[in-house]
């Protein structure tokens, strides 16, 4: 791949990342992950994010099932969401995390409607983030490791 293309890819990836931060999808925790990445784990961030989305899909499914039950088991929902929140925050998924907080507040209030509404929002944010990060990592993969960035092939 020509280095110009590589540069382009990287630039695009950088742009996505920047906008994710600006729009509040990601926060500083994501940067922490990036800092952890090193030669021994060159794809660490992507691995973590992939793991998160795989795991969170389960969470969402669980919560989905739980909100369909009536009456709503707030305690259980709160517990689920607590976990989900912890998970999301660990990769820096800020928006998702905030929605989780809101959801938990509704749970504590026993506000079923608020919970449902917030849950929809969570799903939405989650999906958006997922998509964007997928693109992001795809671009990075295409661009290849930094070492090869300069080599023209």
């Amino acid at each position, binding site marked *: 791949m020509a280095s110009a293309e590589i540069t382009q890819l990287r630039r695009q990836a950088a742009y996505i990342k920047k906008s994710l931060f600006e729009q509040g999808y990601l926060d500083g925790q994501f940067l922490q992950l990036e800092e952890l990445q090193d030669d021994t784990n060159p794809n660490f961030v992507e*691995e973590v994010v992939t793991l998160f989305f795989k*795991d969170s899909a389960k969470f969402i499914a669980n919560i989905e099932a739980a909100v369909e039950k009536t009456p709503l088991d707030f305690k259980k929902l709160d517990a689920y969401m*607590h976990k989900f929140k912890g998970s999301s925050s660990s990769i820096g998924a800020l928006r998702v995390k905030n929605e989780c907080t809101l959801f938990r507040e509704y749970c504590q209030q026993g506000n079923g409607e608020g919970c449902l509404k917030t849950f929809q929002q969570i799903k939405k944010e989650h999906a958006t983030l997922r998509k964007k990060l997928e693109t992001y990592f795809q671009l990075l993969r295409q661009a290849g490791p930094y070492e090869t960035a300069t080599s023209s092939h």
Partner: protein
Amino acid sequence: MDMDSGGAVALSTTSSTGSRKVGDRGGVSDQFPAGLRVLVVDDDPTCLMILEKMLRNCLYEVTTCSRAAAALSMLRKRRDGFDIVLSDVYMPDMDGFKLLEHIGLEMDLPVIMMSADDGKDVVMKGITHGACDYLIKPVRIEAIKNIWQHVVRKRRNELKEIEHSGSVEDSDRQRRISDDGDYASSAIEGSWRNPKRRKDEKDEEDEIEDREDSSTMKKPRVVWSVELHQQFVTAVNQLSLDKAVPKKILELMSVPGLTRENVASHLQKYRLYLRRLSGPSQHQGGPPNASFMGTAEEPFGSIGSFDGLDLQALAVSGQLPPHNLTTVQAGIGRTASNTGMGTSLSHQINMFNSNVQIANSSKIRCEQELNNKPMNLLHGLPTSIEPKQLAHFNRPVHPFGNMGRQVGEGNLGFLNSSSSIPLVSTGSSTHGDVRHCPRSSPLMMQMSQQRTQPAISQPQMQMQLDASMQQLRGQLLNEMVGGRVSGLPLPISQQMLSNEIAGQVLGRNGAVMNGRGIASSGGASINSPSYVAVSQAPSVDFPIRNGTELLASGFSTAATAGLPSMALTGMFQEATTVTGSLEGLNNPTIAKGSSYHLFNELRSSKTQDWELQNISHAYNLNRHMNSTRTNTDFGSSVLGHQGLGGIQKNGQNRYECAGGKGMDAPSGQDENGNLEMIMRGQNNLAVDNSFRVKAECGPNMRCENMLLTDQFIQDDLMSVLFKQQEGVGLVETDFNLDTYPVDNIQV
């Protein structure tokens, strides 16, 4: 390792499974905190992955676990395998706080809680359950980088507690003690100072040795065997606790060779233990007795199956409360059982016995891993001890697990302290046997350490015990059963045995037992043949690893401390740092086999110094030692080492440490020298408790003497331990003797 949970358990390759990397590093302190062995428990795979990476980046050795049960079993298997635990609060299979308690009781490892929940009440809960820190998720790498401080702090605290055991505990206790006599007062006040003076006779020689060791007290220690303790409790009850003064107790007990000081210090510990019991969740007084010695009975029986556990069993037999047994039996390998132990254990464990118990439980669990040499050793022991112990065990044997809850700190603490207590034979005691305490000390130490933490310790103890048991087994059994450990009085031997066992186990497993497990010294003097480990241990190993637990736990530890520490140290060494403490040092030194006793002593004193100074060193050492020994041998070596403490006799050391298998410990061979050697390296860690349980060290042994009586006037065993260390003269240097609240044990 068997992971109970089916969750994603990733054992990081870096985590040493038995072989210590430290050894590779040469046990150099400059590498510290690199190589810190961390266990991370979190059911969230994303978080787990991130934490693992962060920890690796900090050059720590990481082991991950996604299930609490798996984590516990891993901890139990490798008692000495970890230095610190990071755990999430909300986990599906077990509440993080419960796990925290378990770990605290059984392994006495520093635990850091994590959660996305930053609510004040949750954080408070973490603190009250004994977490040494609470991190809010998402965790940042800066926070991870700093976790090593908790390991160091804990060790330091433990050592301090030993030194200050009792001093800070109760002013009224002190008052009482003063009533008892000058001894008491002097003990209280400058107990750590006094011992030194008192040890004139031995001072000279000791001092020289101590210098190296710095925290060993050379006076022979009294090993508070189960029987002895029962006699003590009977006397106290006759007098009614409030009116119980050492002089009268002594008269009632009419045990030849027992001094008022011995009794005074033991009383102090006992009171401390009672206080603890009534404090956290138990009622006053009553149960303690039961638990105090209760452990003894069960352990014997059930322990049978473990090798390493044997040690514990032994230790326990005398000392472990019934529930230990239960745990042991039940638990084998299961956390659940441990849990059971918690409650009952707590009571018991706190008492001297607890140490044993814990040892037992841990042992039992360890059994699985250990060769199951079984309990023969224990079986033998129980016979001698059981009857007496049984008398006191009114408490039902609860699974260890409960212990955590109840005991919280108190019980276990007591146990821990008890370890030192057994040792009480402040040196001067003529009980030649007692001298061999070292062995028991370790156990005691272990026990004590464990005490605070619920249940968990059991398995761990067992493990450690196993290790030590194995070695001890052979010896102890012979000795104990005979009622007379070679040179050690049965009680003492029992203690020693327990201690040793505990110690060993601890050592073996990384000694969580540090304070806890070994605490069992009270009852089972694991005397491995010459170990009077009990007495000596205190300072040693235990503290280091379990750090404070031992000390804190107090009683048992103290009693056994003398021994256990030693024993433990020895054990630890092998086991690699009991309780994962950096103290690892403790273990390493466990001189192989040889004079466990000696080791203990050395350890105690040394530990202190070392500990502080060489936390890292210890850390390395442990690791190093662990690698060397890691296995069963450890047990034996520990025992051997234990013997070092006092018994140093080379021949003796051999003891029987489990057939001397592992005892290669040549280092321990020379009579005091070995121990020192061992201790040296390892002591630092182990000794931190500086339990200077005054175990009676055999003439050979350089019992660091944990002059229990002198120093232990203070209630807290820990303080006693510390004192002892001080007594040794060396200790002070390292540990600031400033009054350290005994109850400082990490909640």
